C-alpha cells in the first residue's frame, strides 16, 4: 500500500525585493498512516514553508517550482483551489507555532472550532458546537469554556484549543508546526503527551516540525533533517540519533546538551546559516563542514540510500573510499 503522504522533489521559491529565495529544494519524504514524521532543522531551513506547501497555503510571493505531493493517492500540486479547499482541514489539518496568533482574537473559541465542522460536514451550528465541546474535553478543557475568547486562555490552553480545532473534522494527517516552542517544559510535556495519546487513540498520521531534536527524539518514528532548504538526512529516529551519518546531523545531535548523559559541553558547528538568496555552491553545508573536501564545493550531493529507510545527502557516504587520506568520520556520540 502506498504511503498516506508522498512528497517528491518539492522545490519552493519566494520572490522578494532582494532576489529569489530558494526556500525549499528537492524535499522528499513519506508519511505512513498512523505514523509520526519529524522535520528538524534550524531557523530558515524551510520546515514551515514545507508545511504550508503541503496545504497549498504559501504566501502570495511563494510558489511550488517543481515536485509532487501525493496525499491518499491524489496529487495535490496541480489540484485546483476549490478541490484543495475540500481537502484542507477535512483530511489534513495544521497546528501553528504561536497559538496566540493562530486564533482569531475577536471570535469565541467554540465558534472557531465549530467553523470547519459546519463548513465541511454541513452540520448545523448546534451540532457543531456540541462536537466542539466534545473536542475541548478530549484535549482536557472543560466545555464551559466554549464561549470564551482566546485571550482568556493561557498559552498551554490555547495550544490545546488549537489541537482540538485541528481534530475537528477527523483528519487523516495533522501537521504540528513547532507545537511546543515557547512553552514551559512542563506544559511542553503535557502537550506532547496529549499529542501522542491522541495519535494512538485516533490513529492519526502526524508531521511534527521542531528545531528541537530532543522533542522529536521522544515522539517520532521517522525523522528528516533539513538545512538551508535541502534535505540532509532521513531515517528511523533511533538509528538517526544514535548513529548520525551526515556531518550536519552529527553536529546538530552533538549541539544539544543531554541532561541524562555525561556533563560534557555540547559541540558547536562553526559559522552561520547561509543566505537562501545566494546559497553556497555545491553542498550547502560545506562552508561549515569539518570534513569538507574539494568536491563538496563543486558538485551537489544527491540524497542516496545508505541502508533501507536511511538516506543521506553527503559525498562521504556511498563513495567514501574514493577520498584518499581521509578517515571515515565517526559519529561523535
Amino acid at each position: 500500500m502506498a504511503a498516506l503522504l508522498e512528497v517528491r522533489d518539492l522545490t519552493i521559491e519566494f520572490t522578494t525585493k532582494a532576489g529569489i529565495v530558494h526556500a525549499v529544494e528537492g524535499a522528499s519524504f513519506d508519511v505512513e498512516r498512523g505514523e509520526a514524521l519529524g522535520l528538524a532543522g534550524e531557523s530558515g531551513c524551510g520546515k514551515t514553508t514545507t508545511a504550508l506547501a503541503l496545504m497549498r497555503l504559501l504566501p502570495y510571493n511563494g510558489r511550488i517550482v517543481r515536485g509532487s505531493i501525493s496525499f491518499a493517492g491524489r496529487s495535490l500540486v496541480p489540484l485546483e483551489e476549490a478541490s484543495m479547499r475540500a481537502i484542507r482541514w477535512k483530511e489534513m489539518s495544521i497546528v501553528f507555532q504561536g497559538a496566540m496568533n493562530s486564533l482569531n482574537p475577536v471570535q469565541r473559541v467554540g465558534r472557531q472550532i465549530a467553523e470547519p465542522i459546519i463548513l465541511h460536514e454541513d452540520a448545523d451550528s448546534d451540532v457543531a458546537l456540541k462536537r466542539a465541546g466534545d473536542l475541548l474535553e478530549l484535549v482536557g478543557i472543560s466545555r464551559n469554556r466554549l464561549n470564551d475568547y482566546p485571550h482568556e486562555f493561557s498559552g498551554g490552553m490555547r495550544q490545546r484549543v488549537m489541537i482540538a480545532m485541528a481534530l475537528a473534522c477527523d483528519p487523516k494527517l495533522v501537521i504540528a508546526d513547532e507545537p511546543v516552542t515557547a512553552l514551559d517544559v512542563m506544559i511542553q510535556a503535557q502537550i506532547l503527551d496529549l499529542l501522542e495519546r491522541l495519535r494512538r487513540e485516533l490513529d492519526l498520521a502526524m508531521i511534527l516540525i521542531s528545531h528541537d531534536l530532543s522533542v522529536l527524539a521522544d515522539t517520532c518514528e521517522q525523522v528528516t533533517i533539513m538545512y538551508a532548504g535541502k534535505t540532509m538526512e532521513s531515517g528511523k529516529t533511533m538509528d538517526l540519533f544514535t548513529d548520525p551519518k551526515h556531518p550536519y546531523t552529527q553536529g546538530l545531535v552533538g549541539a544539544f546538551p543531554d541532561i541524562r548523559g555525561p556533563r560534557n559541553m555540547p559541540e558547536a558547528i562553526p559559522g552561520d546559516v547561509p543566505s537562501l538568496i545566494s546559497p553556497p555552491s555545491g553542498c550547502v553545508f560545506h562552508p561549515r563542514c569539518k570534513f569538507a573536501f574539494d568536491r563538496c564545493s563543486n558538485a551537489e550531493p544527491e540524497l542516496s540510500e545508505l541502508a533501507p529507510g536511511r538516506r543521506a545527502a553527503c559525498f562521504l557516504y556511498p563513495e567514501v573510499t574514493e577520498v584518499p587520506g581521509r578517515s571515515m568520520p565517526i559519529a561523535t556520540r
Partner: protein
Amino acid sequence: MPGDPSLSIIPRDPKFRGLRDYMISFFGLDRPQWEQFVIYLQRLFTLDWGLSYQDHRPVADILLHDLGWTLLLVGTSTILTVLIGIAIGAYSAIRRGKPFDFVSTGIGIFLYGMPIFWLGLVLQSAFRKNSVFQGWIPWWPALPTSGYYDDRLIPWNWDILHVADAFLHLLLPALTLSLGTLAGISLVMRNSLIDVMTEDFVTTARAKGLSPRQVLRRHILPNGMPPMVSLIALDIAFILGGAYQVEVIFRYQGIGFRTIEAIGSLDYPLLQFIIVIGGAAVVIANLLADFLLLWLDPRIKIS
C-alpha cells in the same frame, strides 16, 4: 478683543450714535472684558448661549436650525464614504500589488490631496445649467447647485415634492464631501486590512478550507474594523472642516456657512457656540466609537 463688533452692526455715521450706544450697552460691550466673560459663563450655566449680534435671535435657535441641515449633509456623506471606502479599501487589500490596487491607491492619494472647495467648484461648474459639458454631451444632467431646496417651494413641507427636491439639492454637496474624504478612509482600510492579513489566524482560516470571501468576511474584516472605527472618529473633525467648505461653495446654509458669515460680522456669541458644537460633535463621535469598539473587540473591557 480685536475688531469692534459694533462697527459691523451699525453704520459708522454720527446720526446712529444713540442707537450704537444703546446696542453696545444692550450686548454689554461697554463693560470690562473680564466682566463680559463672567456674564457669558453665567449664562452658559443656564444654557443661555446669548443673542446673535447680527439678527438678535438666540444663538441656539439659529444654530439648531442650521445643525439639522449640516447633519443631513455630513451624515449622508459619511455613510456613503464609509460604505464605499471600506469596499474599495477591502478590495484593494485583497488585490494587493495588482492593477486595481495600484490604480485605486493612486487615485486615492490624488483625491486625498485635492482641496475640497476646489473640487466643489469644479463639480458645481460641471453640473450647473448650461455647463460646458451639456454642449458636448446631450444627456449631461444639470443639478441644483445652491440652497437646501428650491426657493419657489418655501416654506418647507413634509411632502414628496419637497423631499425629492431636497434630495436633488443634497446630491452635489454630498458627492463633493464624499469624494474628498473617501480616499482617506479607503487608504486606511486597505493598510489596516493588509496588516491583519499577515496575521497567523488568517492562515489558519485558510487552512480550514474557507474560501477567500469567507476568510475576509469572518476573520479579516472583524479584526480590521476596530482600528478603522477609532480612526473615523478621530477624522470627524476633518470631515466637519470639509463640510464647512462645501456649505460655502454650494450656499448650503448649515453651520459652516453660518460660521463664515459670523466671522465676517464678528458675531462672537455665534462663533463661540459653533466651536462648542464642533467640539461636542467630536467628543460624541469618539464616545460612540468607544462603545462600538467595546462591541467589536472582546479584548477591550470597561475598566
